[in-house]
C-alpha cells in the first residue's frame, strides 16, 4: 500500500494518529509527498512548494505535543499546509511574483503528465485539452474554491475532512465545491 497515493487509504487507524507522531522521521517520509503535492498544485512553484512543505512539517514537529488525535495526521498536516498556502497568498512581497506566475501559467506542463494509458491519439488529445482547461480554470477560482477543489479532486478527501482541514463547515465546503465545479465545467464546455 502506498500511503502517498491520493486515492488510497492512509494507515491512521492502524497505529493511531498520536502514536504515528512518535516516529516523526517516518511520518515525514510518509506524508511529505501528499503535502508537497497539495502545496505545489496550490502555489504552482516548486521552490515555494518545497519551502512551504518544509515549514509545514517544521510547524507540525514543534506542535506535535499539542496534537490530541482529534483528526487524522493527514488532515492535521493538510490543515497546517492550507494555512501556510493562505499566508503565502497574503504575503505582499510575493504578490508581484504571484501575478507574474498567474499570468504565465503553463497549462501544457500539467497535461504532459497524463498517465500513459491505452488511449487512441484522438482520445488522448481530447483528455489532454480537458485537463489543461481544468488546470487553467483553477487559476481563476477564489482561494477557498481552489483549496476545496484540490482537496476533493486531487487529494480525494471527504467533505468532512476538508471541513476540518479548512476550518469551514461542511455546508460551506459544499457551496465552494459546487461553485468551483461550475466554473471548471464552464471552462470545459468552452472547448466544445
Amino acid at each position: 500500500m502506498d500511503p502517498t497515493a491520493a486515492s488510497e487509504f492512509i494507515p491512521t487507524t492502524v497505529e493511531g494518529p498520536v502514536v504515528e507522531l512518535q516516529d516523526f522521521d517516518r511520518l515525514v517520509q510518509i506524508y511529505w509527498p501528499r503535502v508537497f503535492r497539495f502545496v505545489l498544485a496550490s502555489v504552482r512553484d516548486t521552490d515555494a512548494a518545497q519551502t512551504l512543505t518544509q515549514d509545514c512539517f517544521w510547524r507540525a514537529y514543534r506542535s506535535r505535543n499539542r496534537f490530541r488525535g482529534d483528526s487524522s495526521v493527514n488532515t492535521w498536516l493538510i490543515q497546517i499546509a492550507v494555512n501556510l498556502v493562505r499566508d503565502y497568498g497574503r504575503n505582499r512581497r510575493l504578490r508581484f511574483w504571484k501575478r507574474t506566475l498567474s499570468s504565465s501559467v503553463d497549462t501544457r506542463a500539467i497535461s504532459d503528465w497524463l498517465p500513459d494509458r491505452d488511449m487512441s491519439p484522438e482520445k488522448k488529445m481530447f483528455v489532454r485539452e480537458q485537463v489543461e482547461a481544468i488546470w487553467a480554470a483553477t487559476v481563476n477560482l477564489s482561494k477557498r474554491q481552489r483549496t476545496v477543489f484540490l482537496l476533493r479532486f486531487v487529494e480525494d478527501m471527504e467533505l468532512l475532512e476538508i471541513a476540518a482541514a479548512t476550518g469551514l463547515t461542511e455546508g460551506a465546503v459544499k457551496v465552494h465545491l459546487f461553485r468551483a465545479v461550475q466554473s471548471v465545467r464552464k471552462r470545459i464546455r468552452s472547448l466544445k
Partner: protein
Amino acid sequence: MTNHLSSEQISRLLAGDGTSAEEQHAGSCAECELELSRLRETLLAFSHSVQHWAEAQASTCIPDNEFLRNRSSTWRMGPLRWALAAAAVIILILVPLYKNAGNRLREADSSEDAALLEQVNAHLSRTVASPIEPFMQLLSDTAGDKVGDR
C-alpha cells in the same frame, strides 16, 4: 422541460451535495450517467496528472529529515542569537560615546598644551633676565618722564 438532470444538479452531484432523488436518477438515466462518468473521468485524469507532476518535482527535492534537527538547533540558538544581537546594539551605542569622551579629553589636553607653550614662548622671548626686569621697567618710565618734561 426535460427529465434529465440540469447542469447545476450535475455539478451538485459532483460536489457531493446531490439529493437522493438526483442520485437515483443519475443511476437510472443512461444519458445523465454518461455525462457524470465523463466528468468524473476528466477529473480523475486531472488528478493523475497533478500527482505525476508533483512526484516528478518531489523527486528533485526528497526531504532530508535532518532539516528538522537543524531547525531545532537553530530554534534553540534563538535566545543566544537575541543576546548576541543585543550585545551588538549595545556596542554600537557605546563605541561612539566612548569615542566622543576620548575626543573631549584630547581637546582639553591640547588646549592645556597650547597655554603652556605660550608661556614658554613668552619666557624665551624676553630680552633681559627676569631679576633685571623691574630696573628696565623703571628706566623706561624715567625716560618717558624726561620726554614729557621737554
